[in-house]
């Protein structure tokens, strides 16, 4: 399907799937992204536009087609079990927001 037709599809075809505000909020919760008040509606409309584009895929019959995860079908390579990295934790923790005594500090989880 050419570019223009795809575009028409994305804009005009009745949405076979449409997210509700509650669903958008739930996805945002799962993704650990706070939505500002009022942001959910705009996000929903944009996501629905994108899902309308994605929906075209659903009509394709892929029975018997093996999913392709990577371009080259190579086996996972294993390396020898030995330490190769040097200890650079001080360098790595230098870029952390809050560190004390070699530990990353976060709000208390267990009272």
């Amino acid at each position, binding site marked *: 399907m050419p*570019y223009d037709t795809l575009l028409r599809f994305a804009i005009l075809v009745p949405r076979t799937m449409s997210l509700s505000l509650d669903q958008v909020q739930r996805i945002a919760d*799962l993704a650990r992204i706070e939505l500002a008040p009022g942001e959910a509606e705009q996000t929903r409309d944009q996501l629905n536009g994108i899902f309308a584009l*994605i929906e075209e895929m659903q009509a394709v019959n892929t029975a018997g087609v093996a*999913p392709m995860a990577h*371009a080259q079908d190579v086996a996972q390579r294993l390396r020898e079990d030995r330490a190769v990295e040097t200890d650079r934790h001080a360098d790595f923790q230098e*870029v952390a927001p809050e560190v004390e005594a070699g530990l990353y500090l976060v*709000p208390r989880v267990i009272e």
Partner: protein
Amino acid sequence: MINASLKELSAALAAKQLSSVELAGLFLDRIERLNPLLNAFITVDRERSLAMAREADARIARGESGPLTGIPVAHKDIFCAEGWLTSCGSKMLSNFVSPYDATVIERFKAAGTVTLGKTNMDEFAMGSSNETSFYGPVKNPWDTAAVPGGSSGGSAAAVSARLTPAATGTDTGGSIRQPAALCGLTGLKPTYGVVSRWGMIAFASSLDQGGPMAKSAEDCALLLNAMAGFDERDSTSLERPAEDYARDLDKPLAGLRIGLPKEFFAEGLSADVAQAVEAAIAEYRRLGAVAVNISLPNMKLSVPAYYVIAPAEASSNLSRFDGVRYGWRAPQYGDLADMYCKSRAQGFGAEVKRRILIGTYVLSHGYYDAYYLQAQRIRRLIAADFAEAFKSCDLIMGPTSPSVAFGLGAKAGDPVQMYLSDIYTIAINLAGLPGMSIPCGTGARNLPVGLQIIGDYFGEARMLNAAHQYQLATDWHRRAPAL
């Protein structure tokens, strides 16, 4: 000197016509003068660059130089470079000075290149116009009211404006080829697995691939020689013998079979782009190639499949940005969950959040089969189309982008329209094939048009050969914007 090829620069350095320090200084001065207009660089560090240049000069003096020693290169801000701010175009990493080098950076250092700076990009490489960067949009040097393309838009603008002789980019759905086309450059995305992804901030791991952006195919071949190679730290890096990507540059093209997919020339392609691409094919015929009509029937599904797979992988990759070990942490928060939610809400821009949300949804319980698995099945259908096509041709050619560079802001409010600007490039990433873009003419508003050349797996040397022969016969790649 600013228009010289890498080979010419290397010869000048070897003959002591100029030093690497002088060469770096020349480009740093241009950056200082022109970057305020173009916003192509996020970070420039003159002292650090000159120190590398001094080291290169010492190496040349000792007679230990290679083909790229002393040559300035700019790196997309997605590559971790020790001691350099590595922001990935995001507020999330706007305080991240990398403690280590990506393999690509290590390899360029080993080759003796001089890092000129870190180039602007769409935030986390998500965009086709370079308008999603936390550091502001990049301007196209050919028309500063137009976008340079994305996501490697800073690298493209920098090479195009001759702020650097060469740059690195990354390409997940077209992010090297599309900006190369829109800025009049040569850019190459290698076969998936050829260039190490270690230290290259991940967007969609099964699609991301680094590659060179430069003024010519010959320059790209030399750069790829430095970039490519097996890396045991990247589990998807391919274990293959080293190749000289410049080995076939001078081969004649007689008998080369060029596949023209009918889907690339259908409705949706701007007339000006079609005309330039057809003229390029005619030039290839004059050079002895033969055109073959082919079809990629599932190409139309590449955009929908990509906008499932890429966001799914992005949502997983970007879960590491939680305000604990690095990156932005919200100044005020309640409990741990609130710290995550606020840090991510403040650290990520709108497009990145959109893609994380899409990815989270398609991977969530009950939807995985319908979306992610279905997209991966379609991915195989797309790869099979290419396998079938390569039975009757050696290379595939067509447009890189459906139009020349569009205006800043023209598509910014409409994600779907923006996504469709990668219609001709995305299928190549899904299949894991190598693809490149070379300048082949001008279209509307006298802006550059890119010809896309797609090779079979590991066909980089052949693609570079075809591109180089075209560049010997034409001069589109020599044209530079007036600045």
